[in-house]
């Protein structure tokens, strides 16, 4: 029915008005030889994702496929060639090999060409030229060994190998995928003739993913890739695939009758010669075959919502193995076919087709649990077992003009003043504090986390403490950083308890089970945890931070639960000096008034003082006047806008992993020795923090962050 949206009229696929199920999920594709039956128009309009998973007797169906739609194509069937393999007996075995090339009706797809192209792609595509065997041949072998049901095809691979095929697949997914399945099954049959499962082709990682709100009628019946967050899943709906009937009179069981477009053809009479009773057949539920189906609602992620808009949603239809692959709250990237079906508005026939509902018939679902700040994430996984296919780096995130964008960013990074520009772009409304902004920038870029084979971890996250007089816009800075890093959590030290920050155990009110609930630090794993009013925090809460800030884990032992949770967060804390204003007569340490053990865990500590200086005052005054009276665009001339800034940061975090050069290492060492010496000179107050090994680590992290800022692989 959805096909009506495409220009050519397709009489064969007019909606079945009486069908209670609007989905066309007939058992169109069947295992074994029937895979080959359809050339011509047969594949069109059919949904092939719903293949029954096993049927050990392929010759079972003597009847021709019920769903070969009437087609203007001259020849009803064209069988792709398969050479000399031991194909099981096939009902249409006679008409193979000899047909002239022909097109699927309404498209420019030649079945022969496409299946050849697919075969070439499967056989010849290698991820690196040195590979002995084609990548997908290897994967097919693996799948066979694991008795898998699906074959994941990376859209990017296909594009690299054969653009034409890729374009055809995106434009006519139903037809091409049908052929794809056929080719794959042929290959499988050659390798393992008795393999009794049907292998489905699942395409993922399309070159461009569409924004949900940009889906429009022209995308219908095309392959699309959409990112979003699952908000609701329906319960699993058993969908009947093959029905079994029993004669009420003689007890004879009918053959399994496949479902045609959501409709069961009840046999009018008993098939047994001796009985032949009319209207005696009754459905036997437990001998029918069902497939799982689920309807899932996908909603836009916050970053895709334009200002002043509400998130859009789209329905997904999941089948078989994809059922329950995602849970509400998961961020996923879905590849599927965008489809529309008519809504029956009234009970009368005439209004049937004026409204349409849309959904995505899901082919592949990838969980993407990453926010803008995340570089690599162990959570990122493919639902299906065959992961080798996806081991190739996911360069997804930014659709379409991704490469252009990367070029732009690289261009930016080459500018000599990039460091200043970046710091200027950070929180432009906040006046001055250039040094602090640079520090925050380092925090955003972060160092490189290192995990030694011995199991030792070196954190890459940079912790920053801001100590300053009241009214120096510390909180505003925190708010800004919190906004910039989506995984960031903003919390106030006043009133937050240790458990609120780390993790706590609570009882589920409904089931009475004890559950481990994450606190702010765990929630901001791989993000930035902004803690305002750090000095007002209770000592017990603060002491929890020791572990988090160095080991980057949260350990909890409570109510029988002993757990260690990851909390790889950067901490950005701000505090007032001990006497609420900075007292120049006291030492820095006395002013900050935090335990040295905690202080040494901060990589950078900033004192933001409000000094009586006429020049800074003047600049402040000018800044404020500009804030009120100038066009913000002119004011922020060569600063980067927020999206560019986040793109820049995330690209650097993802792709740049700087190494230390020998000279840099020497410099670092001498610098460190120098620092140690300075702390130790005789007569120095005990209250001065001497440099510890932590400092050299800090310095390394900071230099890594600075290198990342320049997109430089070397420090």
């Amino acid at each position, binding site marked *: 029915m959805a096909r009506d949206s495409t*220009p050519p*009229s397709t009489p064969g696929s007019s909606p079945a008005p009486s069908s209670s199920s609007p989905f066309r999920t007939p058992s169109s594709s069947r295992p074994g030889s029937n895979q080959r039956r359809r050339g011509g128009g047969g594949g069109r309009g059919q949904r092939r994702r719903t293949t029954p998973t096993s049927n050990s007797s392929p010759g079972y169906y003597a009847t021709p496929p019920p769903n070969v739609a009437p087609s203007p194509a001259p020849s009803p069937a064209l069988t792709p060639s398969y050479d000399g393999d031991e194909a099981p007996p096939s009902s249409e075995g006679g008409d193979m090999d000899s047909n002239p090339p022909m097109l699927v009706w309404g498209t420019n797809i030649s079945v022969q060409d496409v299946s050849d192209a697919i075969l070439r792609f499967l056989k010849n595509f290698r991820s690196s030229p040195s590979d002995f065997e084609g990548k997908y041949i290897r994967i097919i072998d693996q799948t066979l060994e694991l008795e898998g049901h699906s074959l994941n095809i990376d859209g990017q691979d296909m594009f690299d190998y054969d653009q034409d095929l890729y374009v055809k697949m995106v434009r006519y997914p139903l037809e091409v995928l049908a052929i794809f399945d056929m080719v794959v099954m042929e290959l499988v049959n050659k390798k393992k003739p008795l393999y009794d499962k049907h292998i489905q082709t699942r395409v993922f990682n399309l070159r461009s993913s569409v924004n949900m709100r940009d889906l429009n009628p022209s995308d219908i019946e095309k392959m699309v890739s959409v990112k979003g967050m699952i908000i609701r899943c329906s319960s699993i709906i058993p969908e009947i695939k093959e029905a079994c009937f029993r004669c009420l009179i003689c007890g004879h069981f009918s053959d399994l009758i496949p479902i045609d477009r959501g409709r069961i053809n009840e046999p009018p009479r008993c098939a047994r010669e001796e009985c032949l009773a009319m209207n005696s057949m009754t459905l036997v539920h437990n001998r029918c075959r069902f497939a799982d189906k689920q309807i899932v609602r996908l909603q836009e992620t916050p970053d895709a919502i334009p200002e002043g808009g509400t*998130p859009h949603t789209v329905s997904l239809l999941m089948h078989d193995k994809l059922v329950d692959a995602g849970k509400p709250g998961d961020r996923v990237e879905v590849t599927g076919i965008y489809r529309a079906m008519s809504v*029956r508005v009234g009970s009368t026939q005439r209004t049937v*087709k004026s409204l349409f509902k849309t959904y995505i018939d899901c082919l592949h679902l990838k969980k993407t649990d990453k926010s803008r700040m995340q570089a690599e994430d162990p959570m990122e996984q493919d639902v299906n077992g065959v992961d080798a296919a996806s081991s190739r780096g996911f360069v997804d995130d930014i659709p379409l003009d991704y490469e252009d964008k990367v070029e732009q960013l690289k261009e930016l990074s080459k500018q000599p003043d990039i460091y200043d520009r970046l710091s200027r772009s950070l929180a432009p409304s906040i006046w001055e504090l250039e040094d602090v902004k640079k520090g925050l920038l380092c925090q955003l870029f972060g160092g490189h986390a290192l995990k030694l084979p011995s199991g030792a971890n070196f954190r890459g996250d940079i912790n920053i403490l801001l100590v300053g007089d009241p009214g120096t816009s510390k909180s505003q800075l925190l708010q800004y950083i919190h906004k910039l890093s989506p995984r960031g959590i903003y919390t106030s030290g006043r009133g937050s308890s240790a458990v609120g920050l780390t993790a706590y155990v609570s009882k589920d009110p409904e089931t009475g089970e004890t559950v481990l609930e994450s606190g702010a630090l765990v929630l901001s794993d791989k993000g930035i945890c902004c803690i305002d009013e750090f000095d007002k925090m209770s000592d017990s809460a603060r002491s929890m931070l020791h572990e988090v800030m160095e080991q980057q884990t949260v350990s909890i032992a409570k109510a029988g639960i002993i757990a260690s949770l990851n909390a790889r967060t950067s901490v950005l804390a701000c505090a007032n000096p001990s006497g609420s204003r900075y007292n120049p007569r006291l030492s820095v340490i006395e002013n900050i008034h935090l335990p040295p053990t905690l202080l040494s865990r901060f990589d950078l500590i900033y004192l933001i003082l409000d000094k009586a200086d006429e020049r800074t*005052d003047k600049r402040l005054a000018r800044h404020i*006047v500009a804030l*009120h009276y100038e066009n913000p665009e002119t004011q922020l001339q060569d600063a980067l806008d927020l999206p560019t800034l986040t793109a820049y940061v995330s690209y650097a975090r993802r792709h740049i992993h700087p190494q230390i050069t020998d000279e840099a290492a020497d410099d670092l060492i001498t610098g460190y020795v120098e620092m140690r010496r300075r702390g130790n000179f005789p007569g120095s107050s005990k209250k001065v923090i001497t440099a510890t090994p932590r400092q050299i680590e800090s310095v390394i992290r900071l230099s890594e962050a600075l290198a990342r800022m320049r997109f430089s692989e070397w420090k």
Partner: protein
Amino acid sequence: MVGPAFDCLANPLGSVRVLFEKAIESGRNPASLSRADFTGEVFRRFLFEEGGLSHVPILDSVNLLGIPPNSLVRFVGMVQDMFDDEYYVGAFKDGSTWRTNKYTDVSSLPMGPSSEMHLWDRRLLYCVPVPGQNSWFKAAFTPINSLRGHSSVVSHQREKRPREPDSMDLEVDGSDPDLALSSHAKKTREEGSSCSQSSEALESNLADCMSSNFDSSSLPCLVKIYDGPDVDIKLNDIFEFIGVFTFDPELVNHNSNHDELSDALCEDVLAHLPPSKVPRLQCIISRRLALLDLISTPLGLQPGQELVKGIREALLQSLTSVLGNDGLAAKYLLLHFLSQIHTRIEPVAVGKLSLNLTGFNKKNMGLFGKSLDNAIQCLLPFSDSIPLSIEYLNTTSLAPKKNYQTNRLVTGALQLAQGTHLTIDETELKAGTLNATGVDNIRILKQFLDFQRVEYEFEYYKVAMDTDVQVLVLSEAKSNILPADLVLPFRPVEVGSYLNASSSELEAWRWYLSTLRSHRYHTIDPAMQKVVQDDMVAARQADRSLGTEELSRWLAMARLMSISYGENSLKPEHWQMVKEMEKLRKERLV
């Protein structure tokens, strides 16, 4: 070409059909017409050039039944929620001619199963009357041009209107998003009447203004937008939609027919919005309305500096008497009424000026609170109030929240149109324990006051929406949970009186407030800039505790002050006035 053949008013669909056929005849491909505006020109000419607009009836609950379906109507409202796009058969071939379904809910002609067709899409907006409309505004706006012909009554209505029937008598649909708000309004009302000891006259006067919030004419409307995403419509915008009012009885039994998708997740929004309760409007022309568009310029007013000054003085005088002769508070209040966010430089909203009047308690709340409320309601088009109490904080949700069961955005007290005035009464707040909702609400309120931003709750994440609401906090001492820009101890010297003005005066004042507020282009010349900067530096040298926020606020006030005189650029005298005001305020704070 456009002759009387087009009856845009009574038969807009006929005109649409003719125009569509014309477009086809001129050789355009029906597929390309999907978002093409083939009707706009003719309708725009009819409405705005030929004066057709005044003949178009306004859709409200009173004349809902009187308006024939498929005629042209208009609706003014706030966009409360946006639904997913709807796909429909935009063009189809009937025999050999192309027909369109644009601007209809269902196809007017039967479509053969095999007809060639094109799928188009349209946006669905759920609009409600602007929350917190004050009665004068409604009275002034609604009946103009309405078919009901009440125009002669308007002036009387404004003077003294019989108390309207209580809105609560009306049937409230369970899924009505206004429910939260209306019950809140009810609460306000009940509280208002319970602690009232004032005379009958005052009461009725009050009721007049209080009936503002939600009375019978709060009719939501489902607007279908055909222009595609180009039209920039945001949540909480006030819009005027002119289009075809459709009512199809066949849609009524829509519910009975469940299909699989909506069955499984019961998320078909429209199922909860029967056309009998929520009329459909097929929008042909939409336009954003600014405050200024909503308030008509009083007759005989020749805008000019002198006049503006005169109005300012008179208004200030009245505000002073409302505030028990506290001149300083009145000045601050005036600036507060004029404030509007003019720029956002993340994360600062420049131009907001929230005011916290301290020194209110139970006793004088009865005296001044009401007269203040009354003044606000008589002067500003949209206003709302929140009685802050522990119970209120713990039970209501201030921020709108998405209900995935019905797939609707359930409104909250802070979903307000841009430019609304909000009074938060903190005197009701006593010591008590907040639950999770309460803590969340406090956080939302703080963010709302600090950054003029409300986070809408979408369960899995929050979406921050920018707001522009003038917030007035009334509290006993400086409010810590509601950090306002300005804290001013209120010092009345006599009992406050009710706003006392003739209707023409009121009209002038309303015009003054809304016009000057829309004034966005305000400049500063370099000489003045230098004066301001030097003053700031000097002030900081004298008092180190002055932070960025204070200085920034001075400038915001100076800007508003100069705007209040109708000036386009900052003048030294206004800057001086602001400094003087701040000095007096500081003295009070000590």
